[in-house]
């Protein structure tokens, strides 16, 4: 409970003279709270580095059994390691940003978050950033074992690679924002988070190239910002692509991420209206 009190304390940092700085402090306080809450659980500490490695190894041996040495012209381990990076980002989108308000409901602090003078969007983004940071140990371990396993890294344009990485994390936060309100409006936030976790591994091309998806699945894949960000990240880190070679997927990432952000703003407004109409802070 003390961590949630701390989260609310973040909102008290609000400074009327510099609202941007105040919102940033709220985001940072929420991210810190998210991390404290997560790492308070010893099982979560074990999961942070272990699960990504196990998933990477699992997919590696599956590809090995299939006899494939390359995926879409890129080496298998490198392809999967970048897919693992996306998996961790997706986990942050669903269980960090997307489930942020649900977590506040479980903790009994939802009402305080809503009535406090900070933006709800900052709380969602803060949880999303907390989720991204939680994934860093797993990512480091994955990259550490990917190289000895034979990952072939080819970064010829570091700026392009950094842009692609930022696009991936930006889309993570945008999706988290979109889901944050939609999950609550669905009245089944936990079920929604569980549902969305696995299909995206397939649809966004985390482990299987999108080119092998049937047409109707490919159409769904096209509205997921991470699909494009992941394409750009793979091209810039595994094939040495330049910025000019990946500007289209980067632009598509921004466009589709904007749709999720718009959905987030709309759903949070709807949630706010529903709360006022009902005269109750308890939506579930």
């Amino acid at each position, binding site marked *: 409970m003390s961590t949630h009190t701390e989260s609310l304390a973040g909102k008290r940092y609000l400074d009327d003279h510099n609202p941007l700085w105040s919102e940033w402090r709220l985001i940072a306080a929420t991210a810190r709270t998210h991390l404290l809450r997560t790492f308070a659980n010893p099982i979560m500490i074990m999961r942070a580095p272990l*699960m990504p490695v196990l998933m990477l190894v699992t997919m590696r041996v599956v590809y090995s*059994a299939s006899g494939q040495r390359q995926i879409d012209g890129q080496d298998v381990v490198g392809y999967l390691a970048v897919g693992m990076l996306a998996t961790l980002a997706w986990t942050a989108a669903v269980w960090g940003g997307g489930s942020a308000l649900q977590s506040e409901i479980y903790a009994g602090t939802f009402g305080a978050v809503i009535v406090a003078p900070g933006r709800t969007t900052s709380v969602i983004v803060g949880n999303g950033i907390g989720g991204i940071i939680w994934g860093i140990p797993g990512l480091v371990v994955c990259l550490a074992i990917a190289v000895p396993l034979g990952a072939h890294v080819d970064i010829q344009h570091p700026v392009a690679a950094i842009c692609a990485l930022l696009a991936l994390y930006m889309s993570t936060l945008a999706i988290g924002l979109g889901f944050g309100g939609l999950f609550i409006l669905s009245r089944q936030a936990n079920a929604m988070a569980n549902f969305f976790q696995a299909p995206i591994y397939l649809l966004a091309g985390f482990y299987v190239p999108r080119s092998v998806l049937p047409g109707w699945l490919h159409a769904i894949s096209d509205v997921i910002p991470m699909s494009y960000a992941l394409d750009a990240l793979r091209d810039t880190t595994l094939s040495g692509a330049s910025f000019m070679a990946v500007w289209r997927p980067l632009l598509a990432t921004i466009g589709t991420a904007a749709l999720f952000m718009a959905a987030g703003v709309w759903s949070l407004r709807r949630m706010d209206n529903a709360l006022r109409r009902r005269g109750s802070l308890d939506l579930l």
Partner: protein
Amino acid sequence: MSARAYPVSAQLRLMVAAASAVGRTKIQTSGLFFYILVWMTVPVFNLFMVALIYRGNNSLQDYAIVGGAGMALLFGMQFNAGEILDNERQRGTLGNLFLAPVPRYAWLAGFQLFAFAEAVSAAAITVAGGAIAFGVHLAINPLAFVLTLLLFVACMWGFSMIIGSIGVAVRDANQLSNLVFTPVALLAGTMLPVALMPLWLRIPARGLPFGYGIQALVGASTRNASVAALWRDLLPLAGFAVLLPVVGIIAFDRVERLARRRGVLDLV
């Protein structure tokens, strides 16, 4: 009141009532639509992913579809049966269940019965989905298939009892399930045959029952393999089918003793 005071018919009614109660609770909590979404999507989408990786290799695709059903069984038993006790603890009803004047194994068996029905349904849907999307070449030996399934389920029942008991003791069965599921799904051979794994994975995989079970299920359902032909897999599977339930019951008993020693039925 001891278990001896209850006739078998009453215990069976209790078991069915417990299964029905836990089923209604789960479905009514999330609604039928979301319930289906949550419990069916993981195995089905995982199967699609693996089957797409094996595109062009019919033998491995057949394996992936039957292995996908095995994963659905594991998923259902792990995340349902393995979390039953902890869910009751979180709802504040675990103490009432322990205190109820009925045999403990009757309500526990009822909960497990629903978990089993759910897991089998998910497995059937996974196979159906895989067959529709990729086609599967079935050649079933009924006796070998039923025997393998029974032994496999007995193993999973025991395993979920062990994990469930530890989950209550550590007060977070869901995170424990999340932690355990990925390595178990890998070592169980749900996505590729144990024989195709590298040696360092094959050794621990042979220390678990699931790899034998899924290999035997694949043989009995896609190659019309008889019990005699599958003895190398069925023999260790049978050993685990005896051992794991016994260990599971001992683990459950330990949890109960822990509760008595602490004087707190909810273990919180």
